[in-house]
């Protein structure tokens, strides 16, 4: 078997705070194959966005990656110089962000903002060719009248159209890996479906691209992804093929997440939230970080932190119940 596209080993990303160091990503190991679509799921604050930013090496100071390794297509990303890393971004590694209105620069035209990717990575490109390629990409992401809209500003687009523009900028150079950080969270439900559909279509058209879809919505991820990784308080707690996780979740947290998806076939008001709050990332509890919220916790859960173990090939879970 060839080397995976992305392999993360024991990654730790921390942010110093007034109360102490906040561990956002706490020893995560994860691999991603070429062309794979992986869903990264967890509630707000679980560290999934920071994990995505860590792979891009875009964690902003004072936050920093303190330990671990990230190998991408045979290269150790954490050993690259700032400029070598910059040249990968936009070209081989791309990122789509959560709030399109805040992600686009309000004072630059969308043509400029997409064209910038070409200008920095293909320095020899002329203005006419740049324009041509941007228009073609706008067309591919479904912007009507792409040619006329090249010089328009972000505020002249709806939220969904803005997200299409961002996707165009991210995918214009056919990157090998796209990290989509909650790409539909800020959008209307009908627009969400369109954007997910667009992502799927673009991915099918590309022989190379793998996607990490970061989301707190298991429904969205289950529909889009082949494999799902569930994150809790900076740790991966379960990794498995999407169907297996949705049909037969192993970790109590995953069970809770699936149970908390509102469903139309249940009566109104019958929501099943997971009790309690996310473990404090500055002073995490001893043992399993989830034990205080877990109905099945026993003595060992309070003292020993479970590690991610392989149950059957392709299925991993970090829980003492499955030892």
């Amino acid at each position, binding site marked *: 078997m060839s080397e995976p596209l992305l392999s993360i080993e024991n990654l730790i990303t921390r942010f110093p705070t007034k109360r102490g160091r906040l561990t956002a990503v706490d020893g995560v190991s994860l691999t991603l194959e070429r062309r794979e679509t992986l869903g990264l799921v967890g509630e707000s604050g679980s560290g999934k966005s920071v994990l995505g930013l860590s792979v891009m090496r875009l964690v902003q100071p004072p936050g920093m990656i303190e330990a671990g390794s990230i190998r991408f297509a045979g290269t150790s990303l954490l050993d690259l110089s700032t400029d070598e890393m910059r040249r990968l*971004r936009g070209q081989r590694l791309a*990122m789509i962000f959560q709030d399109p209105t805040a992600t*686009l620069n309000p004072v630059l*035209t969308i043509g400029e903002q997409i064209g*910038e990717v070409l200008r920095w990575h293909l320095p020899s490109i002329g203005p006419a060719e740049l324009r041509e390629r941007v228009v073609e990409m706008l067309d591919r992401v479904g912007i009507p009248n792409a040619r006329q809209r090249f010089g328009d*500003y972000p505020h002249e687009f709806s939220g969904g159209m803005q997200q299409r523009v961002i996707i165009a900028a991210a995918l214009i150079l056919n990157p090998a890996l796209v990290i989509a950080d909650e790409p539909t969270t800020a959008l209307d439900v009908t627009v969400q479906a369109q954007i997910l559909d667009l992502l799927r279509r673009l991915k099918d058209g590309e022989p190379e691209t793998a996607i990490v879809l970061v989301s707190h919505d298991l429904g969205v991820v289950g529909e889009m992804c082949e494999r799902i990784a569930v994150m809790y308080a900076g740790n991966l707690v379960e990794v498995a093929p999407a169907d297996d996780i949705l049909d037969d979740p192993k970790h109590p947290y995953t069970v809770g997440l699936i149970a908390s998806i509102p469903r139309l076939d249940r009566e109104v008001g019958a929501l099943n939230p997971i009790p309690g709050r996310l473990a404090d990332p500055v002073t995490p509890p001893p043992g399993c970080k989830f034990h205080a919220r877990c109905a099945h916790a026993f003595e060992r859960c309070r003292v020993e932190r479970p590690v991610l173990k392989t149950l059957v090939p392709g299925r991993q879970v970090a829980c003492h119940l499955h030892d």
Partner: protein
Amino acid sequence: MFGYLVRRVLSALLVIVCVVFVVSAISKLVPGDIVDMMEAGNPGMTEQDKAILREQLGVNKPVFETFTSYLGGIFRGDLGNSTRLRSSAAVLIAERVPATLELALTALFLALIVALPLGILCALKQGTAIDYFGTIVSTFGVAVPNFLIGIILILVFSVELQWLPSTGYKGSVVVAAWEALKAWDGSVLWDRMRYILMPAVSLAFFAIALNTRLIRSTMLEVIRQDYLQFARAKGVPERTVYLKHALRNALIPTVTIVGLQLGTLLGGTFIIENVFAWPGIGRLAVQSIFWRDYPLIQASILVAACVFVLINLAVDLIYRLIDPRIRYVRH
């Protein structure tokens, strides 16, 4: 855009007409008889002189008639005659406008080239020694009045060190710069720059301080925006992220303030020109007040107000060019 332009120009004209009205009514607003007041500043007037003056100033005419005749005068290029200097107020002011504009624009230029890098640096190095240094300098600059800075500069650089002349004016720096470039000889330019340096710095100090704070705080706001992460994620180098993506957004509030600052700086010349004996309209206006030279006072106020209105107009239009979000707004 065109419709907006027309509306904006018309409203500026309306303001100017109002200014003309107030200026023309000065002769009625002064308590007592204006001509008697002027006699105090110009001893030796005969009753006949006073009668002519009353006629000229329209003392005995109704307010509206004073206004229309003053406005008519403006269209003929006539702003009345200075009683003290016995020549056309319009000509006297026109002679002095270049010196004042040059001083104010030099100060504005200084305010920008110092404040821009300093503000950006303070924002990027927030909480470090550089940031604290910037904060101290700008607090000082906002707190200390410009004439005091002017006097301190004179004491240090003219009296103690004897590097720069304390007062005077040797002609336009811009003209000298052009000639220095043609003749490839900077000696004349430097000679003139020595005169403008201290007045411009004392005038600019407040603006430098304010702009540094403003650019620092808007930059700090912009630095946290998602669109900078997006730019980085596209492979844009950090320098360009700050100087293109962040700065263009931070400049929007700055342009508004800087435009209005030119007005404030023009106002500041009224004091600074007197400290450094700079022959501009500020000095002329203050002198004309001491002389009780009402036609000259009226003309100075009118010109200063018109310049201020025109600057505001220009700022509004530039603002629209920089910030596309308000470019097409229709009312």
